[in-house]
């Protein structure tokens, strides 16, 4: 079997995380290619359904990236998103998908280095976890 | 006289009554009931027999009451609304009376959540107020709760509980009045540690003349240890153990704590004796029945009067 390269979806809020990704870009901070960003206006826009669907379609990892606590452009969307992520993590456990495959992270717009660091750490973590059980099951 | 109850006689004669309690065993060991009740022989006027206390299954209060009765002592049969519907309760009351039990206490009962069968349904077909009404109806009017006539009415001396420390405080005197209206002949209160608050409650009781309408037995408990004091202050709902009591327990070495607990209890009794309307004491020495004698002795409650 070829080397496992996880597919990771990163839902990034426009105001902080997506801007931090741009920041990582302009500072040329490297991170693995496995992370694919989907832009949302606020991390609270990320529906539980989007996350679950991503896993159903075969994502190995998903993370939702919002602003730092207290910094949400829409008052408290990021805190709401964090609670939702926790809820979906429990559901993933029920389904039999390791909840560590889903994460909420927070960063400010200026934290390019953190964006790259998070992307790297999460990719490493998922790599260690191996392919998502759903992916394995569909491959059979 | 409403009944043949020894407790009623003591109270009616104007003596300070003394009751204590005895938790039935968690198994078929009638000798345990005997041992525990023997500690109280000649010390108290009636022995409360708890009904699945703290929602833990024990020998039925009816059976344990009968065993105590067989010892020639006076059981105080406790009945809670938690475990039985009105049919079962009335059946037990008739049964108890038929076996010579003439004094009872009507309670709501601790919630099953706290016991060893949290899965069990809480019956609560009727509440403690309605239970009082029901027993009074059986005794005075000779009818079942459903309206049918009783052939031979149970002449019970009817008790109820009161907790002067629970909230809403302003309702606590009214609630007592309501229980009296429903049929309570005597009252046993929650353990008193906060005497100030109890006095405040009694003031309200006297203002309404309730102490003249029923007998109020003030509940007291000796703390066996600092841990017990802390537990009661923090964990038992509706229990008011002021910080001074806990501090006082904490101020003595461990081996002296039981002694200190007894001291506090006796001082409390002495203080309560001066409160107008207190007709006696209900000494709850949970799993420490042997200490009751010392408390009564030192509090000047012995020997018990003969009636």
């Amino acid at each position, binding site marked *: 079997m070829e080397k496992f390269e996880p597919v990771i979806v990163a839902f990034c809020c426009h105001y902080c995380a997506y801007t931090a990704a741009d920041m990582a870009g302009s500072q040329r901070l490297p991170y693995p290619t496995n992370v694919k960003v989907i832009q949302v206006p606020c991390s609270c826009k990320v*529906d*539980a*359904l989007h996350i*679950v*669907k991503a*896993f*159903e379609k075969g994502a190995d990892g998903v993370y939702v990236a919002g602003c730092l606590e207290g910094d949400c452009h829409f008052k408290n969307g990021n805190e709401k998103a964090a609670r939702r992520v926790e809820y979906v993590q429990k*559901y993933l456990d*029920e*389904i*039999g*998908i390791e909840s560590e495959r889903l994460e909420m992270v927070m960063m400010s717009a200026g934290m390019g280095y953190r964006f790259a660091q998070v992307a790297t750490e999460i990719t490493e973590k998922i790599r260690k976890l191996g392919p998502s*059980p*759903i992916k394995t*099951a*569909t491959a*059979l | 006289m409403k009944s043949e109850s020894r407790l009623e006689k003591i109270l009616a004669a104007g003596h300070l009554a003394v009751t204590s309690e005895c938790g039935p065993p968690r198994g078929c060991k009638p000798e345990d009931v005997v041992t525990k009740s023997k500690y109280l022989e000649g010390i108290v006027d009636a022995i409360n027999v708890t009904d699945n206390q703290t929602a833990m299954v024990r020998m039925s209060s009816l059976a344990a009451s009968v065993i105590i009765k067989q010892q020639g002592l006076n059981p105080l049969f406790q009945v809670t*609304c*938690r475990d039985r519907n*009105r049919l079962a309760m009335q059946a037990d009351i008739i049964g108890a009376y038929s076996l010579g039990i003439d004094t009872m206490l009507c309670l*709501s*009962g*601790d*919630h099953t*959540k*706290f016991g060893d069968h949290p899965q069990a349904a*809480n019956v*609560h*077909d*009727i*509440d*403690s*107020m*309605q239970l009082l*009404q*029901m027993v009074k109806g059986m005794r005075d009017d000779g009818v079942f*709760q459903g309206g049918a006539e009783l052939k031979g009415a149970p002449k019970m001396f009817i008790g109820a*509980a*009161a*907790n002067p*420390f*629970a*909230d*809403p405080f302003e*309702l606590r005197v*009214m*609630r007592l*009045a*309501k229980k009296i*209206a*429903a049929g309570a002949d005597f009252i046993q209160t*929650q353990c008193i540690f906060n005497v100030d608050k109890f006095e405040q409650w009694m003031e309200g009781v006297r203002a309404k003349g309730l102490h003249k309408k029923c007998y109020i037995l003030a509940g007291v408990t000796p703390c066996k240890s600092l841990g017990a004091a802390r537990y009661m202050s923090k964990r038992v*709902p*509706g229990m008011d153990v002021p910080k001074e009591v806990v501090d006082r327990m904490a101020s003595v070495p461990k081996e002296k704590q039981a002694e200190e607990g007894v001291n506090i209890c006796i001082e409390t009794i002495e203080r309560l004796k001066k409160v107008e309307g207190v007709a006696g004491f209900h000494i709850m020495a949970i799993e420490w029945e042997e200490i009751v004698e010392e408390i009564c002795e030192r509090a000047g409650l012995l020997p018990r009067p003969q009636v």
Partner: protein
Amino acid sequence: MITAERKPLEELIEYIKPFKRILLLGCNECVTVCSAGGRKEVGLLASGLQMAMLKSGNNIEIRQHTLERQCDPEYVEELVPMINDADAVMSMACGCGVQEIAMRFKDKPVFPAVNTTFMGASERQGVWAERCQGCGNCLLGETGGICPIARCAKQLMNGPCGGSVTGKCEISDDVDCAWQLIWDRLKSLGLEERYMEITPAKDWRSGGGSGPRKIIREDLAE
């Protein structure tokens, strides 16, 4: 409204294991409002079941549909074209909805996906609390509009037990003492003396004590 909570996935998987094609049904009434069985939860459950089954090597087909109301036969009739394609139905409606499906489609297995919990109100976003037990003989008029049967852990009808502390019930700090609430209400209505009236033992026949209940409005019933 009627409130419900999704059953653990494990239990649901056991139900559908023998089947290949499942029709997962939501209801746009109470269970939507309490976020237990609306379109969104149907989507989440469909996806979750699909994945859980895949993991155990079963590739099943789940179709999703949400009815306006599952406890009315006319709405249930909508399902006729879909029902034949399904080996079994799993309903996210309350117990009433599940039974309606079972009655209408006699030869189709139907399973509940939620536990119907209580009749309640939404205290705030995401929090629902029991308010009524449908005793059939409402005494809210006597108790200041707060129900001691549904909201007192001991169903006390004549006042608070000794476990009421600072407005909370002894069974949990999260539960308000119903009698504290009743008393506060009576006070603010100036009806304190009402407390002194003893509520007699309740007649439970109206509360289901004499078997399953039915309401018939002669003027409407055909």
